[in-house]
């Protein structure tokens, strides 16, 4: 399984043709306490860069973009009742949605962990 990052601070774990998407630890630290998350419904078709989810903190509301194209398998049901998971475990239990990848070559344009760490260090 490999993990990729976008410049908009989403991460995606890829296992075969299935990806799990969330926002990075850096993103949650910038947003502050998350108070509401809206995840996409299963079956929704997304293109790379589409607004897939909404995350709201005490400071601001932000869109979460899909890092790849594909069909949503499921949104994380736990986030409805416990949006704080995004703060406590952003790159684990706080995942947003799972998606089937329709074009694995889209991953080539994303960053790996080392490249993302360097990207964040410059911000």
């Amino acid at each position, binding site marked *: 399984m490999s993990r990729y990052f976008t410049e908009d601070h989403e991460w995606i774990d890829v296992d075969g043709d299935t990806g799990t998407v969330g926002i990075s630890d850096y993103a949650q630290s910038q947003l502050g306490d998350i108070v509401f998350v809206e995840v996409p419904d299963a079956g929704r078709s997304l293109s790379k860069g589409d607004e897939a989810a909404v995350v709201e903190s*005490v400071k601001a509301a932000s869109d979460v973009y899909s890092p790849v194209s594909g069909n949503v398998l499921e949104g994380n049901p736990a986030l409805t009742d416990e949006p704080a998971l995004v703060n406590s475990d952003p790159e684990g239990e706080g995942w947003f949605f799972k998606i089937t990848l329709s074009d694995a070559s889209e991953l080539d344009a994303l960053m790996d962990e080392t490249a993302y760490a360097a990207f964040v260090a410059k911000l």
Partner: protein
Amino acid sequence: MSINASGWKPTAPVKGEGAAPTFTGNKALMLEEPLIFEIGSTETTGVDFADGDVAGSRLGDLTRKSAIGLPGLSEQETVRHYTRLSRQNYAIDLGLFPLGSCTMKHNPRLNEKVARMPGFADIHPLQPVDTVQGALGVINELAVWLIKLTGMHGVAMSPKAGAHGELCGILCIKAALEKRGQGHRKVVLVPESAHGTNPATAAFAGFTVEDIPATADGRVDTAALKARLGPDVAAVMITNPNTCGLFERDLKEISDAVHAAGGYVYCDGANFNAIVGRVRPGDLGVDAMHINLHKTFSTPHGGGGPGSGPVVLSEALAPFGPLPFTARMADGHIQLIEEETAGDDHPDTFGRMVAFHGQMGMFTRALAYILSHGADGLKQVAEDAVLNANYVLRSLEDVFDAPFAGAGPCMHEAIFSDKGFAAGFSTIDAAKALIDEGFHPMTMYFPLVVHGAMLIEPTETESRAALDQFIGALRSVAERAKAGDPSLKTAPHFAPRARLDETLAARKPVLTWKPLVVQAEAAE
């Protein structure tokens, strides 16, 4: 100088040391107050109605069967309840209110006197127009001045507030496009430096919103905007002065490009107080702009009164404006142009937004403000708004990070970031400390293009003495934030309530009050 700007403190002993908690929870003049449902018995009433002798009810089975549980209070208990609550609040009549983008300036008492004249205050919107010629004359006169001050062609007076005015302007644009057979234009471009209501307005009216980036100096990226123009673009919504407190210098160039591409220019005029009497948006190619009477023209708002958002329109859009409006006839009589009286003269109007004519009380106040200031006074409003904001900016840029300070003078508001605060300290800590200093906090975390933004609009009505005291307080707060003073994390310490858990309030809001006994049962 009556205002203490020097940081002088009284040498009297610290109060409260060694004192026992009071029986009532009150602290002398700082009075605790429960919720009204907790003090009023549902068994009592403050009003003594005679039993009605009207026989029968036409409600049938819909008659209420059980008590609704409203608290019964006497007049005195009611007055005390709300007066006690009001003493825990902060208001423009108590002190400087630097909430960015909100223009919390002094509301002259002359306006209040005029608005309370019985000929304006005690009339009804359904009265025959012959009996309300004075009030209609106010609407008409104000309309004339708003058109003159903005260099536009017409004005829709009825929108009730800024965002309602935005909707009015966008609906005019939609109607104009459809009339031209250009209804397929579905994209509205909104720069990052625009107000947050702009994209919401466009989306609500059925358009697709696309962001245009800001440049590093906080203004719209003109090249990026021009590159995006095309046959699918309906309009551009641009805020000027923008929400970074900067004048959009390229607006004329942008308008020309938008018009050449077949679109319209909407300008968010919420910050018109910074340019009134100095710049006419009509000269910059604007097609529609709302004016917040409650900001620029000083009518009370933010809990003190309603908003009012008339929309000035260009020659291209004016025919599409909503009914009703007023017109002065050759004999001086003011006519109200409505559905019944418009005849065939206004076939392109998109319709009506409100039941009646708009916020009459705001119209009288705004006209009183315009006439009492005069042309020279309104020019000075803009000058003082800009001067005061720049005084704040230059007095604080050595202690706060000021991201656009190098871009030249600001307009009516100064913006700072939380860069340079000690680790773990953020804008919210500075804002809470400002409450302890006796000020309303600034606008926080907006605009989003600035990290931990602090948006400060001192307004044109503050004296230099008041500004100096405010600046002194902010310098002290900045130094504590940079030094990592732990007491800042738990501020405010002197407010009726200490730091509230805003996260818990947002995650688990309790929006309905239930009797304590029900709460106890639910907990079991």
